[in-house]
């Protein structure tokens, strides 16, 4: 892990994005365990360096598409944690006025074109976002986040091929967190690296360390440059780990059974992206310890305020069911 080629303000920017995701997700996990959140939540803890590294390499005009595990992507793209938290509570003040929920947060104003709850469902839409940039001769790049599970969906293959044949400015970011729900990724495919599949579509496929935000930033920046130059899409496979389960409260589904490999759990702990980056920033004296603490407490405070605001927000009015329909 090194940042020689990355400006200090970018390092700090990435650090803040990771920290904001972590504190938000910790709060969400707690709220879920306390029974305060409806529905399911899929936390991004352990994978933060991917969203942060990727989004730090994008402009505000570039767009992203996300997954059921999407909170981190929204925050990394610059989303408002107050509106996110309110959406998780199903409140009228949420990003989607309580009609979307955890798996369907979007912020079109910042190029966050939506989280998609269907595994693999976002890839074709991201191709369309890239197509619109190509069509309009825009510099915009479209990024699609998806997991290892989505790489086994037909939509993955159709989308990579379509983006490749039209040389569209799309970056496919596969977050391989080692499990599709409870099934190890290695049991669901007969290859080690999903990135190898890129060759089948005539595009570059790269493996990157998902715990190293600098490496993610670097490979994304190169893919962005390639896309803007009209050279077409790239597949980036970020090897990552989720610290928690597939979904919070998954014990209920597991009924006493286990699925995590102990060595993988230990690796996930050792390769915690926040821990690694925190150590790096401290050891390299990029920011003094007291400033790091202030940063953390400011973010923690902002998250607490978001929770409070969400809790005190009104439920959506029933009339809103008949709003946001056909124009």
């Amino acid at each position, binding site marked *: 892990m090194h940042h020689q080629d990355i400006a200090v303000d970018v390092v700090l920017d990435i650090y803040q994005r990771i920290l904001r995701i972590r504190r938000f997700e910790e709060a969400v996990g707690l709220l879920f365990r306390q029974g305060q959140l409806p529905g399911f939540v899929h936390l991004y803890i352990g994978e933060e360096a991917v969203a942060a590294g990727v989004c730090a390499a994008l402009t505000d005009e570039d767009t992203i598409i996300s997954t059921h595990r999407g909170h981190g992507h929204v925050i990394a793209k610059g989303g408002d944690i107050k509106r996110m938290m309110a959406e998780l509570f199903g409140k009228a003040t949420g990003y989607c006025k309580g009609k979307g929920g955890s798996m369907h947060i979007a912020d079109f104003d910042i190029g966050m074109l939506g989280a998609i709850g269907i595994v693999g469902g976002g890839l074709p839409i991201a191709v*369309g976002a890239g197509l619109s940039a190509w069509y309009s001769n825009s510099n915009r790049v*479209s990024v699609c986040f998806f997991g290892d599970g989505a790489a086994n969906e037909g*939509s993955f293959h159709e989308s990579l*091929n379509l983006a490749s*044949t039209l040389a569209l400015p799309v970056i496919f970011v596969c977050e391989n967190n080692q499990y599709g729900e409870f099934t190890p990724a290695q049991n669901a495919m007969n290859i080690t690296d999903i990135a190898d599949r890129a060759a089948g579509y005539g595009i570059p496929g790269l493996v990157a360390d998902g715990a190293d935000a600098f490496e993610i930033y670097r490979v994304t920046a190169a893919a962005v440059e390639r896309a803007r130059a009209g050279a077409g899409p790239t597949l980036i496979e970020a090897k990552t780990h989720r610290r928690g389960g597939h979904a919070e409260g998954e014990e209920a589904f597991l009924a006493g059974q286990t699925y995590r490999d102990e060595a993988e759990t230990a690796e996930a702990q050792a390769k915690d992206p926040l821990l690694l980056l925190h150590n790096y920033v401290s050891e390299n004296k990029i920011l003094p310890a007291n400033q790091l603490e202030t940063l953390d407490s400011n973010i923690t405070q902002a998250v607490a305020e978001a929770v409070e605001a969400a809790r005190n927000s009104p439920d959506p009015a029933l009339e809103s069911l008949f709003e*946001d329909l056909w124009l």
Partner: protein
Amino acid sequence: MARKTYVAAIQEALAEEMRRDPRVFLMGEDVRIGVFPSTRGLHAEFGGKRVIDTPISELAVAGAGIGAAVNGLRPIVDLMFGTFLYLAFDQIANQAGAMRFMYGGQTNVPLVLMAQNGAGSSAGHHHSQAVHQFFMNMPQIKVIMPSTPTDGKGLLKSAIRDDNPVLFLHSLSLGGKRSDVPENEYLIPIGEADIKRAGSDVTICTVGPTVYTALGAAKTLSREGIEAEVIDLRSLSPWDKGAVLDSVAKTGRFVAVDESFPSCSAASEWAATVAEAVFSQLKAPVQRVTNKDVPMPFSPALEKAVLPGEADVIAAVHKTMAYS
């Protein structure tokens, strides 16, 4: 006015809208060559960026249409056969129709999906099913299925200008049909039925190619002294309940003719609506005439037997006339 074929009318609608609005483009498998001739010639005029040949990837192409639509373009995605829409189901059912609502009104999806729907060319089960009823069941997908060149042109132009996802279903069996198409620009609003034949004794409600079946049956019935009113819904979602209920209020008899498999057919929805809304004005139970409940066969003799035919419509009307 000039008499034009259905295919020519669709071609005109596409070309006119592409000339009018640079955000409108067409993509799909072989749209350049034009397997169905309605897209033929557009590539020569508009080029490869606006008439985009794609791989055979219905799911990705439909989804790419959505992605382009939410980014300000107005894509027309040609998926060729209605049955191929099954391959794109996720993008249509989970994404296109829901996005605007699901994201709290932050976006809208001005997308047109085109496909040929239903039987008539003896192509077997995979190329002959009518699929419109599935999409009527999906919230916020508009579905149009015009039966004449005039309606086809006016409705397709409205669909392209619509700010919501619209499924435009045409039929190979209607490709050569001719009608008077106005020279001047015109639009036909989505959701408005057309009474193709006025009558006082029974209301026959239908859509697409079976409009001609119903009209044929009405002609025979007229010779018996039964005057059928034939309503061509033209749009299936939203559909013109008002026109149907007004007609039934007048005739007191209702026959729904629909090229769907019987369970949860479009006809089921129309019949239920009529039975709920104007029960006291009905002189006889509502009747449905649909496909037989079997997969689509290949043999022309068998295919004809599966589809609603004039004799089936006449028999259904006779049933309603038995109550008087």
